[in-house]
């Protein structure tokens, strides 16, 4: 009986801590992406002020859906294109972000999935 209880406790412990144990620490690329995201993206996509003609979409889980908000397939290339060229009222970051920086932001967006 004692052994059975012990086994149950172990199982409960595993179930309780499994998600935390699986939580991924951000790598260097994602960490840089997080800093760049906070600088360039967060002001609109997380904390958009009232009064904008169109409220920018939140980007958590953007790669979990088959399509981006504008309807194109949610691929790295599509997101890269939106970041660099802009889309509708979203400004282009062409010239302000280097290729490596865009890749870091995309890596961070994947980590927010």
């Amino acid at each position: 009986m004692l052994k059975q209880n012990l086994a149950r406790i172990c199982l409960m412990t595993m179930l309780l801590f499994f998600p935390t144990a699986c939580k991924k620490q951000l790598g260097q690329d994602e960490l840089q992406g997080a800093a760049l995201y906070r600088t360039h993206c967060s002001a609109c996509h997380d904390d958009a002020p009232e009064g904008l003609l169109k409220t920018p979409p939140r980007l958590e889980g953007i790669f979990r859906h088959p399509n981006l908000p504008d309807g194109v397939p949610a691929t790295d290339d599509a997101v890269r294109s939106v970041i660099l060229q802009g889309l509708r009222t979203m400004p282009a970051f062409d010239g302000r972000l280097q290729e490596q920086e865009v890749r870091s932001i995309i890596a961070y967006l994947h980590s927010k999935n």
Partner: protein
Amino acid sequence: MKSHEEPCSFQSALDRSWRSTRLLTLIVTGFLMLCAAIPTPTAAQLTESQQAATVKRYPLRGKVLSIQLSKQQITVQHEDIPGFMPGMTMPFHVKDASALKRLAPGDQISAVLLVRTADESYEVDEIRVLRPAAAGTSGGAVQGHPLQLGDSLPDAVLTNQDNKSVHLSSYRGKLLLVTFIYTRCPMPTACPMITSHFARVHALLSADAKLAAQSHLLSITLDPTYDTPQVLRRFGLAYLHDHPEGFAHWEFLRSEPAELQKLASTFGLEYHQEDHQILHTVRTLLIDKNGRVLRTWDGSSWKPQEIVDVMASAAPGAKR
């Protein structure tokens, strides 16, 4: 009998041993999972000393472009930060607010960038001024002599989103609302907000035929090198809900890059361009039908209806 019982006892012992091994495996696995869980607690679960251990320090060097006291931050054009990010221009929160008092735009500084890995936040600390800004400069900002109320708007030739030349003097006889933006502006409270406001002003004016006929809106770019007529047209259409006929009432203009400084000075704009980043003030001017400054609004906190009301009061026959 004894010889018959022995195999049973052996089998029983084997069974007990197997169950004990299974239980032990379960306990060990549970313990290992618990150990694996311990190194990744949430930021809220960390003690202060543990959090300090997760802060990475990076040396930072660069030039202060602007200081935002209300936000306790500075915008720095910084060199490469080895192991963290390449050189760029960006705002940083300053850990010690008193350090801001010792800084001026144009100062060359060294500092330590503190990156907290738990919540990915960062801020600068231990700021030292390596070389103070030269006296009388403000990081390259253009110091203008702005038009005052009642002043006449001088003429200038610009190009619109359809690549057609337009003279500012050609709008005489209309109430002219003018502002400055650039399409790549990433500050939501600056150009995106002003352009959103203009879109609403355009819609409100268009709802009154007499008011629409007596008014015109201009958004002039501060980034004429990037903002070609094609770029301005695409940008304008997004705010006109893809109705190009709206350009007849609201145009998006660019000057020749060499003419921008003079134009911006005339309108009282201050701006600072570093590569592809433009730091600028926000100003909107209402020019009356005689080409004189009727009213100005600084910043983007004004309401579209407020401006429409002012324009309506200056337009005979308008509904308001």
